[in-house]
């Protein structure tokens, strides 16, 4: 058995040096899932047989002389990313029994790189939520404290990586769904800039905000995984065909000389003192290591949550219309008419939070309300984007908390949607602005819960956030 505390890079090194095979590594991951997932509930489905076949193929390829950072590495995939032949439920009853007929572009790229698809991770239904309690199937637990949530919506991926059930995972981030669970579980999560990674084959929640990104044990692992995911895609017209830099090389820069912006609006009362203390300590350490600390302002921050819950729900109301019981997924019994088929299939298939957001989104687009809500939100979104453009003229990256609190208890927030929405206050602006953001562990609360530092970078500035993240990782460890 291979120890499950391996980083992706260490696993790749082990495979290269023939310390173990991909089949052995994959068997170890499957064994860890068997052993631990009864408590964690990180996975919705595991494809052991398929994974071992892929692992054997990777071993054969390596024996034939092939090499690669992901060749033979098992990766867990959030259950809204299509992998041909695997279920893709989006943690919703409406997609019970649905098997993806095609690969998402990110899946195809990982497959091409020789990665092994071990299993599908739990999430809030259709990625709508911040605690993974919104899954229709199970509640994932935080590996640091089983009474607490792992965050969300990519909570299954975060818990699997942090809990030793996966070496690396894919998540998606629409308003913080990679960064916040990474912070809650104490792993690394990167939301790439909008247009950096293809969305083709990723079940859409909010098309203008969604991005796929890596969730890993280290910043270097995130860089390696992003390398395989990033790049333009003819199947997704919103990707930009900007050259993909060498992300691992970017890690070597060091923090010295970097200008770190502290946005005034993110350092406010209401954030948990322990969380703030961890963030402050990290900023001070970076300053001591030679970084320049700059106070910046993002004046429209206070509108971000409102804008997000208009734009995201509007897009979701259309994106989720296709789940109608006609072509795939759940179909109600004996419908009386086509509209009864729609109404009942959807009423039975969708959970409460999804329904709430569809109704919100339908409302804000309705005739007579469009200008006041959606139209207005689009204008404010431009102001938020401009805020970042201005602020990044004065700094290379920004340091902020990922979330106002560390992981909360299961059941604590799920009955108060507004409270849960407000927990996204520091992560949502990056999605609205299309910029990139990294969540990296920066300490623990008095209760021993992980705290995440958010490192924001300009659009297509992944190299800068990874470089700063690598330095933070080093500071915190030493």
């Amino acid at each position, binding site marked *: 058995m291979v120890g499950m505390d391996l980083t992706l890079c260490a696993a790749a090194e082990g495979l290269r040096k023939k310390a173990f095979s991909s089949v052995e590594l994959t068997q170890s991951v499957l064994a860890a899932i068997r052993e631990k997932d009864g408590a964690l509930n990180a996975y919705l489905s595991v494809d052991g047989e398929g994974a071992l076949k892929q692992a054997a193929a990777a071993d054969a390829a390596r024996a034939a002389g092939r090499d690669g950072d992901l060749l033979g590495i098992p990766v867990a995939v959030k259950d809204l990313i299509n992998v041909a032949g695997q279920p893709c439920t989006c943690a919703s009853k409406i997609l019970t029994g649905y098997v993806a007929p095609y690969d998402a572009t990110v899946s195809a790229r990982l497959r091409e790189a020789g990665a092994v698809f071990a299993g599908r991770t739990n999430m809030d239904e259709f990625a709508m939520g911040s605690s993974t309690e919104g899954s229709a199937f199970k509640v994932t637990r935080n590996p640091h404290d089983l009474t607490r949530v792992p965050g969300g919506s990519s909570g299954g991926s975060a818990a699997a990586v942090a809990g030793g059930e996966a070496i690396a995972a894919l998540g998606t981030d629409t308003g913080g769904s990679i960064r916040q669970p990474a912070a809650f579980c104490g792993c690394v999560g990167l939301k790439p800039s909008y247009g950096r990674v293809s969305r*083709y084959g990723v079940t859409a929640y909010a098309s203008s905000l969604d991005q796929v990104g890596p969730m890993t044990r280290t910043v270097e692992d995130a860089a390696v995984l992003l390398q395989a995911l990033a790049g333009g895609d003819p199947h997704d017209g919103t990707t930009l065909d900007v050259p993909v830099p060498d992300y691992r090389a970017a890690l070597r820069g060091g923090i010295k000389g970097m200008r770190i912006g502290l946005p005034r609006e993110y350092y406010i009362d209401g954030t948990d003192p322990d969380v703030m203390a961890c963030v402050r300590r990290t900023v001070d350490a970076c300053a001591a290591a030679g970084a320049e600390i700059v106070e910046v302002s993002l004046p429209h921050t206070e509108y971000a949550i409102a804008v997000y819950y208009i734009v995201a729900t509007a897009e979701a109301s259309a994106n989720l219309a*296709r789940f109608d019981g006609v072509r795939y997924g759940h179909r109600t019994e004996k419908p009386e008419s086509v509209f009864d088929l729609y109404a009942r299939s959807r009423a039975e298939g969708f959970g409460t939070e999804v329904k709430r957001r569809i109704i919100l989104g339908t409302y804000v687009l309705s005739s007579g309300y469009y200008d006041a809500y959606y139209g207005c939100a689009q204008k404010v979104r431009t102001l938020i984007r401009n805020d970042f453009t201005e602020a990044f003229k004065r700094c290379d990256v920004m340091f902020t908390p990922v979330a106002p609190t560390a992981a909360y208890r299961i059941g604590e927030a799920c009955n108060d949607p507004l409270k849960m929405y407000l927990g996204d206050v520091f992560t949502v602006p990056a999605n609205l602005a299309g910029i990139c953001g990294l969540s990296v562990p920066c300490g623990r609360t008095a209760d021993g819960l992980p705290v995440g530092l958010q490192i924001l970078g300009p659009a297509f500035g992944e190299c800068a956030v990874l470089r700063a993240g690598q330095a933070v990782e080093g500071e915190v460890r030493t």
Partner: protein
Amino acid sequence: MSQYVITIGLETHVQLKTATKMFCGCSLAFGEEPNTNVCPVCLGYPGALPVMNREAIRLTVLSGLMLGCEINRHSTFDRKNYFYPDMSKDYQISQNTHPLCLGGSVTIGTPEGPKRIRINHIHLEEDAAKINHYARFSGVDFNRCGTPLMEIVSEPDLSSPEEAMAYLQALKQILVYAGVSDCNLEEGNMRSDVNISVRPAGQEKLGTKVEIKNMNTFKGIHAALEYEIARQLAVVKSGGTLVQETRRWDPELGETQSMRGKENAHDYRYFPEPDLVPVELSDELIESWRAQLPEAPAARRERMMAEYGIPAYDAGVLADVKENADFFEAAARACKPGLGKTVSNWFMTEVMRLLSETGKGVGACALTPAALAELVTLVDEGVINGPTAKELLSDVFAKGGSPRAIVDERGLAQVSDVSALEAFIVQVFAENAKSVADFRAGKKAAAGFLVGQVMKLSKGKADPKLAGRLVAERLAEGQ
């Protein structure tokens, strides 16, 4: 009728002639097994994203340029939300706020002279699937789902069913000329929704608007308009009030029926399509497309008159159908100069008669432009006579082949040899002594009969002019 004014506007959906669908690579072949030309994108599977078909953009812009529209340099797509099984995503990708083309017009002929029908805009969208109803269930065929459709929206400038027909004919002619669509009505390439209202003459404000859907033939539109005008006039004249509504045309019953009233009008909740980036068209690109523009029908009429020396009437008839004009020009260019009018005569009389008899388009018959040119040249050179040429044309029209080769093979060349003709004439004069006597007695018509007998004896191959002259000479000799 005259104390009421009728106002009609048309929204015409035209299927563009692209190889693949609007947002995916599926084929647009017509008449295939249901749900065979489909993929995750046009079936609306989770995660699938649209990819813009650039050719559909080009064809729409070409149409706009042909119709004198202004081309939007910045154009965007929107989602039109509605639930129906014919739309796989339960929203249609269309253009609401920034369509590709604005303005433009179509000129139609009316009894009062030419009339300009303004176009409001042209936008691009994807077609819905086809729903087939069976005895106990309905089925959806997604082969059509995602077909690129261009919607041409006219201003309410039409004032009779006849004008609506003239507009559609003119539009179809221009679009076929532009090569952007086959406008094949049987395959549903061109479908229109109609907006119609009536109001008393002298009233400024338009009457209550009724929209009619579900008409896919010109005949259907005409019938629906006539029915609807009569219905609306009857309501108004009897002092009733019309309601703003959407009606559908039932071709079986020959009537329009209410589908939904204003209060049940859909709220489509349009918003910008986040999966597609705006279409930005540079001046250079638009100019390069303008340079590819085919000739418009009106310009072609003028040019054909000058180039081939044919009268306005001929040019009008030939230019009416693009493939006829193409055929004529190819044939005329293959002949020596000066034969344009002759080619036009043959095409407009004999070829068009054969086309109407067989119900074929000129592209579907075996006759080629080169063959028609050869036939006309054979007549012009005096190798065959007119009657022989007509028979030969029917033959080649049905079976193909080279007229010159057939003439050689069957020995159809006319007899222009004087001694050979003299022999026929001697025989005819001998066998028809009474006619010869009649002529000499003053019945001049007998000469024609004698020429006819010579033609018959030669099995139609005698040069009729030469035979006429020789008969006349011989008759004159004897007096």
